[in-house]
C-alpha cells in the first residue's frame, strides 16, 4: 500500500474547486478513496452533499468518470455499470481492469437506498459501495436518519421541551451488510488514513461486492468548529462509538482498540447537537447512550475474539 507521502504526490482525482463546507470530512474521504482507486475507476454518487458540491454544471471536481442517477439508486446504478463492464469484457471489447465505486451518504445508504444496496450486494456485483456517514440528512438541512445517534438534535428530531432529541439508537448498517455474507465489509474513519486507505485498497482487490462505512464528521450538522473534524473522527473511535473494524469472509477483526476507552461524553460534549444532554435532567440519556456503546463494543470484542 502506498504511504501517505506517496499518496500526497499523486495527482488528485477528486480535486479542488468543489463547494463543500469548510471542515467537511466527506470531501477528504472521497479524495483519499479516489487516490487509492486510481484513474481506472468509475464513481457513482447518490444525490446528497457530495454530489451537489462536486458536480455543479458546467464544473466538476472529478477527474475520473462520475455518474449521478438519483437519491436511492446509487448501488443499483453501479451494478449496471459493472454489468456492462462484465458484458463487454466477455465479448472482448474491453480488456483493462476498471473499478466501480458507488457511494452515498447515510440518507442514500441507510435509509432510502437500503433496498438498492441490499440488492446489489446480494447479486454479487464486483463493486465497492462506500457510505460517508455524517449521521443525518445534512444536504437538506440536518434531518434525522436511521444513522443519527441516540439523543442527537436534528431538525426532525429536535431537542424540545418534551422530547430531548432522537429517541432511537442508530441502525447497525455495517452488520446488516455483513449479514449479506459478502467477502468484505469494514468500518473506517478519516482520522486514521492508513487504516482507511488500506481498507479501500483491500476492498478493490477482492472480487465481488465490498462495503465500507466511513464516519464523516460534519461541522454544520454536528455543530462544532470546522477545524475539529479530524478530532471528532478520532474521538468517535477512541470512545468506541465508531469502532474501526472489518469483516473479511465472515470473520470480525478489530483494527483499533483504544488503550483506554474514553467515555462517550468526551465526544458528545464537543458537539452542539448533544448540547441539551449536558443538563442534569438529561443525564439518563447520556447514561443510556453509554450503555449501548458498551454493549455493542463488548459484542464486537467477543466476535473478534471468537473469530466469527
Amino acid at each position, binding site marked *: 500500500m502506498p504511504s501517505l507521502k506517496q499518496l500526497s504526490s499523486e495527482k488528485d482525482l477528486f480535486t479542488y474547486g468543489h463547494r463543500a463546507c469548510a471542515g467537511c470530512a466527506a470531501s477528504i474521504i472521497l479524495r483519499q478513496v479516489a487516490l487509492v482507486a486510481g*484513474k*481506472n*475507476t*468509475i464513481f*457513482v454518487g447518490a444525490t446528497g452533499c457530495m*454530489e*451537489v458540491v462536486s*458536480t*455543479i*454544471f*458546467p464544473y*466538476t471536481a*472529478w*477527474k*475520473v*468518470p*462520475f*455518474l*449521478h*442517477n*438519483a437519491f*436511492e*439508486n446509487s*448501488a*443499483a*446504478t*453501479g*451494478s*449496471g*455499470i*459493472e*454489468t*456492462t*463492464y*462484465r*458484458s*463487454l469484457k*466477455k*465479448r472482448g471489447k*474491453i480488456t*483493462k481492469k*476498471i473499478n466501480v465505486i458507488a457511494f452515498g451518504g447515510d440518507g442514500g445508504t441507510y435509509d432510502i437506498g437500503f*433496498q*438498492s444496496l*441490499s*440488492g*446489489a450486494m*446480494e*447479486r454479487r456485483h464486483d463493486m465497492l459501495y462506500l457510505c460517508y456517514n455524517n449521521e443525518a440528512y445534512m444536504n437538506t438541512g440536518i434531518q434525522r436518519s436511521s444513522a443519527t445517534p441516540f439523543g442527537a438534535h436534528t431538525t426532525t428530531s429536535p431537542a424540545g421541551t418534551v422530547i430531548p432529541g432522537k429517541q432511537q439508537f442508530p441502525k447497525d448498517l455495517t452488520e446488516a451488510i455483513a449479514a449479506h455474507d459478502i467477502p468484505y465489509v469494514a468500518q473506517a474513519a478519516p482520522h486514521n488514513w492508513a487504516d482507511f486507505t488500506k481498507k479501500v485498497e483491500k476492498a478493490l482487490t477482492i472480487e465481488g461486492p465490498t462495503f465500507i462505512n466511513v464516519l464523516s464528521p460534519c461541522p454544520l450538522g454536528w455543530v462544532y468548529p470546522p477545524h475539529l473534524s479530524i478530532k471528532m473522527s478520532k474521538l468517535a473511535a477512541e470512545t468506541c462509538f465508531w469502532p474501526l473494524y472489518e469483516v473479511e469472509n465472515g470473520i470480525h477483526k478489530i483494527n483499533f482498540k483504544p488503550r483506554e476507552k474514553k467515555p462517550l461524553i468526551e465526544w458528545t460534549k464537543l458537539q452542539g447537537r448533544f448540547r441539551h444532554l449536558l443538563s442534569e435532567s438529561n443525564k439518563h440519556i447520556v447514561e443510556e447512550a453509554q450503555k449501548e456503546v458498551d454493549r455493542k463494543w463488548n459484542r464486537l470484542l467477543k466476535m473478534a475474539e471468537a473469530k466469527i
Partner: protein
Amino acid sequence: MEKMIVAKTGNEAMAEAMRQINPDVVAAYPITPATEVVQIFSSFVADGRVDTEFVPAESEHSALSACVGAAAAGGRVMTSTASQGLALMHEVLFIAAGLRLPIVICEVNRSLSGPINIHCDHSDTMASRDSGWIQIYSEDSQEAYDNTIQAMKIAEKVFLPAIVSVDAFIISHSMERLEILPDEEVQAFIGEHRKPYDLLDVDNPITLGGLDLQDYFFEHKRQEIEAMKEAKAAVIEVGKEFGEKFGTSYGFFEEYRMEDADLAIIALGSTAGTTKVVVNALREKGMKVGLFKIRVFRPLASEEIKKSLEHMKAIAILDRADGMSSFGGPVFHEIRSCLYESEKRPIVTNYIYGLGGRDIFPEEIESVYKDLEKVAEKGEVKNLINYLGVRE
C-alpha cells in the same frame, strides 16, 4: 429472405425480438402480465442463446437504475415491465431520458392501482407520457415484435429511450401468427450499437448527471425537446426502411379505410383490431367510416394528425385511460388540440372505455359510429365525454 412463421403471444414476440437484438445488458424485475418476457429472456441467457448479462434486480426502480448505469457505461440495454413496475420506474424514466440513454422497455399495458387490477388499460404508459420516452403502441403480436426491433434503432438514432407496449392479456397472452425475421437480418437492421457516450472510457473521463441549475437546466431540457422532434424523422425513416427490407412499412399511425371517410374513430393498441371489423361491417351498410390508429404517441405527430383528420365531419377518440381531470382522457386532449389550428376543425368527442380490462365489444364500437353519425348530422355534441361499457 426466409421468414419463419410461428405462433407466439405478445410477450413471446417481444422476448424473441429482444433475443435477436442480443443486448449487452438486460436488468429487469418480473411483473404480471409482463413476467413472461423476463422469464423467457432469462432462459435465453441460461441456455446461452444470447450474449447478454442479465441483472435480476430486486425492484423495477433498481432495474431501470441499473439500465441507466449499464447504458451510460456504453452498453445496449433493454428491460421489460408493466403497470406498477412502470410507476415504480417513474422517477428514473425522466433521468434516463434526460441523460439521453437509448434504453428500450418492452411494456405491457396494465391498469394502475388502485384498486389493484392486473388487466389492460393504458393508465400506466399514459402516466409516463411526459417523461421524455418515445412511445409506440402495438395492435398485435406482430407489431409488438416489429416495433421492438424498430424502437431499438429509433432510440439509438436520436439518443432517447423508447417504450414499446402491448395490451395486457389481450395481446400479451394471446397466441397469434407471427413472422420472425432471421437473426442476422435483425442484427443487420439495428446495426452497430450507437452510444451517446461511454463511462468506461476512463482515459476521457466525463461527469454525468451533475447538478444543473438555473443557468443551464433549461438549455439541456430544450435540447431534449429538440431530440423528440428529431425522433419524428427517425420514426418515419426507420419505419420505411423496415418496410423496404421486410415488407411492412410503419409510420406514426395507420389509416384504415380513411380515404373517403366522414366519421372516424381513433384508437390505440388491440382495440384498433376490433374497430377494423366494425368498420368493414358498417362500410358494407354504406356508412363512410374509418379508423385512425395511433402507433406512435410520443413524439406526437401533430401536423400529420391535423392533416389526416381535419376533413372529417366527426371524430370519436377512444381513451383506455382517464386523465382524472373531469374532462376526459389524454389522447382526446392531445388529438383535439392538434385540430385546433385547423380552420375546418371537426367535432371531436371522447369515449373512455375498457378500464381494468373491461372488454370492448364490436356492438359498442358500432354504437360510437352511430353516435358520430347523429353528431355530424346535427352539427352539435350533446355529450363530449362518454363512458363506454360501464354500469352507472
